[in-house]
């Protein structure tokens, strides 16, 4: 195991795992307390459309997925603010249509035979230096936003009606949370893939929520727990030669089960 650390791709995997885990911990907390888990799932799957477009037109995958995910986030945000009672239908639509667009564009791409499975289930051992920059930049943006707007985001998340009465722009912060969620989903694609990302955004958060007294401690703790799960999952997948993304998720799920048993028994 120790000698594995000398490989560059392993180093990249570890750094990517830590960066993405913290981003997922912070944004996952916001998604859970704002009851946006299904929204995040829709955005995650829709971003496959962006991957298809990027492959077809030959621009970077991250860029294509980001643009597509952010567009779906904006679409969902405007639909939620106008037709709240039908939002589940629209999310379902965006979810499936995004994936369909991705599949069709990959069909149309001549001679393209890269394993698309890696986008669905993650490929943390193939993280490039550019990917790391993108992840670090996103984490920096998230930390900046949370530092400067913590109290507004807290107010909007806890009681949006009251926040709006106190002059907070609820619409702006709601959209901002969705955009950050979209971008976090995109960087998580490398680590666990877009199908498994929802577990990464929720399992550590669920444990942290039980142990936290404030949103800040919940975010921080979620980041730590997600990092732990990612590193243990990576070790597990390396040792037993299993798919990394799925290993991370199953380690997380098993830990959640153990935690709940222990927590209930207390």
């Amino acid at each position: 195991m120790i000698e594995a650390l000398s490989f560059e791709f392993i180093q990249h995997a570890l750094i990517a795992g830590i960066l993405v885990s913290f981003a997922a911990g912070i944004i996952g907390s916001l998604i859970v307390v704002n009851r946006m888990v299904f929204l995040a799932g829709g955005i995650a799957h829709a971003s496959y459309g962006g991957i298809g477009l990027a492959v077809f037109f030959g621009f970077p995958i991250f860029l294509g997925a980001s643009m597509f995910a952010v567009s779906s986030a904006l679409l969902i945000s405007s639909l939620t603010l106008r037709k709240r009672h039908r939002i589940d239908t629209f999310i379902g639509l965006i979810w499936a249509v995004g994936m369909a667009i991705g599949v069709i564009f990959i069909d149309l791409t001549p001679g393209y035979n890269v394993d698309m499975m890696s986008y669905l289930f993650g490929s943390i051992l193939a993280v490039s230096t550019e990917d790391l920059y993108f992840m670090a930049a996103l984490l920096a943006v998230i930390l900046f936003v949370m530092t400067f707007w913590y109290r507004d985001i807290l107010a909007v998340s806890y009681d949006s009606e009251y926040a709006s009465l106190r002059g907070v722009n609820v619409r702006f912060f709601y959209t901002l949370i969705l955009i950050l969620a979209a971008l976090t989903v995109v960087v998580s694609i490398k680590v666990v893939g877009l199908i498994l990302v929802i577990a990464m955004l929720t399992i550590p958060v669920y444990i942290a929520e039980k142990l936290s007294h404030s949103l800040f401690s919940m975010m921080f703790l979620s980041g730590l727990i997600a990092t732990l799960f990612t590193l243990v999952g990576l070790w597990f997948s390396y040792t037993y030669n299993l798919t990394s993304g799925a290993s991370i998720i199953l380690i997380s799920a098993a830990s959640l089960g153990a935690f709940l048993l222990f927590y209930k028994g207390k």
Partner: protein
Amino acid sequence: MSVVDIENLSFAYEKDLILENINLTVDEKDFLAIIGPNGGGKSTLLKLILGMLKPKKGSIKVLGKAASKNPSHIGYVPQNTNVNTDFPIKVIEVVLMGHVGTKNPLFGYGKDEIACAMGALAQVGMQDFSQSKIGSLSGGQRQRVMIARALCAHPQILILDEPTSSIDIKGQKEIYELLKLLNQSITIIVVSHDISVILEYATKAAHINKRLSYHDISDKKETFHTHNEGEHFCEVELLQMLGSEGCSTCDHDDHKEDTKWREAK
């Protein structure tokens, strides 16, 4: 001096008129109870006073100015404070929300804000719980915290929407005793279903069912008596009293059965 002036106000969400030709004046240090059936327009009237909705016709003046969003001089305690209790937030942070929108420091909370929030918590007797998680409190304690949040902005008017709908009898009494105390310096407007408890504390009552009828009940102690030591007014007597004063909305067609029942008595 009047703090809220409502003249010829009508409001409709789409086509159906929710409020029709409402006239209401709330004076300084009034304790006004707004009562009426579900869907009668009570919460809508509150939202209009708070500036969250705009009137279709007529005018609302709060402290001499048109009602607008972001009213710092009105404290608001919303309905359903029992939802979202899993949310990881400390009591002090909830109270500090009362400050959101005023000038904030770049990072965290200012010392004066925290002092102010602690003061508001002390006013409602919850200062020892400032670091507790909101979900660990009882319904009555949580309601006190919401009142503290409203007091945090030093309001001249305190508006509460069904403040005791999910609290036990003891907690309800404590909340109303607290409101009575606050009423010494603040005007209070309460929407409630709980007629008997509210009329024990209120000095004015407005019955809303699309239209409004107004009662000055500050001399109620002489008008009727309470049964037993619980200081609980008898609902039947109260209904008879409200009905006998020629309450125009109660004679409305959809209340015929109600009237018949009263006549039979």
